[in-house]
């Protein structure tokens, strides 16, 4: 028995799928048995980001329709031990799956995996409702932009209404240079508004574009700041006390965010 965690944001393009792929990989590297579930029916891309597109045979829709067994639909990632992907159907719509069905799938995966990470589509409609249906916890991804934070706030309200109260915040694409010049929201401003637990800050990193295009999560790249930041988040999910470093223009210094994380 593990946990089902939905990765969500409200706004599109802030890095939900990238975060799901990287955290799934990082947790598997830590030795956990992980299933990542693409809940973006009709616009699937988690398989692409993870480089598993060519190996998808069955989707969650096929499982629900009884075409195959759940086991058969899981695509094993050969680069890591115990990392599996359940792809979304590309030819269906989000309304073709009901929250109850999704919940059943997640809880079934939960029986045999330590982590089930569900990649939610953008928006607050049925796709999101489906993705969150079976979740015990949620990772809220936002970028340091007013619009993204606003949508994250809305999503947090909706999750709390669904009694999902164990919420963690990931601030993605933080640019230390822009924070320094006062052109970007600081993590403290974001936490002030969202008032949930910060679990990690991912710095802006060009490597991400390269890695998602190649289908090779940055977690495997020891030189990537973003990849290393995802690894630290995986450790924190595992309950390890890893301070959040402060990202400064020109490199990593200090751990001012450590106190935020602990609070």
């Amino acid at each position, binding site marked *: 028995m593990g946990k089902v965690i939905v990765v969500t944001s409200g706004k599109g393009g802030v890095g939900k799928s990238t975060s799901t792929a990287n955290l799934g990989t990082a947790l598997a590297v830590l030795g956990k048995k992980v299933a990542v579930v693409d809940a973006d029916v009709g616009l699937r891309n988690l398989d692409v980001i993870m480089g598993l597109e060519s190996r998808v045979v069955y989707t969650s829709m096929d499982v629900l329709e009884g075409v195959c067994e759940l086991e058969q639909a899981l695509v094993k990632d050969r680069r890591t031990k115990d990392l599996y992907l359940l792809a979304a159907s590309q030819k269906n719509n989000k309304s073709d799956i009901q929250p109850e069905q999704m919940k059943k799938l997640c809880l079934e995966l939960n029986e045999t995996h330590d982590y089930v990470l569900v990649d939610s589509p953008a928006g607050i409609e049925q796709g999101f409702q489906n993705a969150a249906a079976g979740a015990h916890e949620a990772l809220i991804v936002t970028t340091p932009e007013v619009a993204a934070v606003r*949508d994250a706030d*809305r999503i*947090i309200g909706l999750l709390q209404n669904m009694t999902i109260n164990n919420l963690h915040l990931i601030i993605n694409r933080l640019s230390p240079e822009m924070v320094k010049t006062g052109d970007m929201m600081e993590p403290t401003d974001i936490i002030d*508004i969202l008032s949930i637990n910060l679990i990690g800050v991912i710095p802006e990193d060009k490597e991400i574009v390269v890695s998602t295009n190649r289908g090779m999560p940055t977690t495997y790249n020891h030189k990537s700041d973003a990849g290393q930041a995802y690894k630290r988040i995986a450790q924190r999910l595992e309950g390890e006390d890893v301070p959040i470093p402060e990202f400064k223009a020109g490199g990593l210094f200090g751990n001012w965010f450590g106190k935020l994380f602990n609070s």
Partner: protein
Amino acid sequence: MQNESRPTVELKGFRDGMRLIIDPEASMQQIEQAIVDRMANLGDSLSGLTMNMDLGSRSLNDEELVHLKKLLNDDYGLEVKQIIGDSQDEPKRTEEPKIAGVPALHSEERVYDQLSQLNEETRFIRQTLRSGQIERALEGNMVILGDVNPGAEVVAAGDIIVLGALRGVAHAGALGNIASIIFALNLVPTQLRIGRFITRAPADQQQHQRAEVARVLEDAIVVEEYD
């Protein structure tokens, strides 16, 4: 006698919700005009709400009732839930439930006492309001133990007290009471409304360390440090 000082239509908050109280002496035309005037400054802040219509001693025929309900619904998004009145001489009363399923109230249930105005109810909310949430207290005041985030909205007939940061939209005195105030420990709103007055935050808004209170002074909303 008292009627002379009473406006043709009045919006008031009661325990069972908002009421539109109509002067029994006024003509249909006057009523319509008064509704348009009354609603003019409220914008869409009441849209989606239900209200009761208090006709007092007057009687309206089906056609007139349907007309007023349509006006309130189509132009202001207000749904009339119940018709309240005390016209015993009116044969219509028994037939009234027929009109769009509106049940009639008995005259004893009329609450005209000014006491309910003085002794307003206060609604407490013990959570942070997040984007997309809207909370209303049309029977009185609202106290929020938490923040009001950008994209969230609070509406009250009376005062609004935020024991936290007010970053969203607040509308105090939403039924027209411009003596209402808005108080926040950290007042950095997107927009403030008191009665028919609206103000928005200055572009160069900075964080204040002290509690502030907004009120209407000489036809404008002013914000002062609270002490």
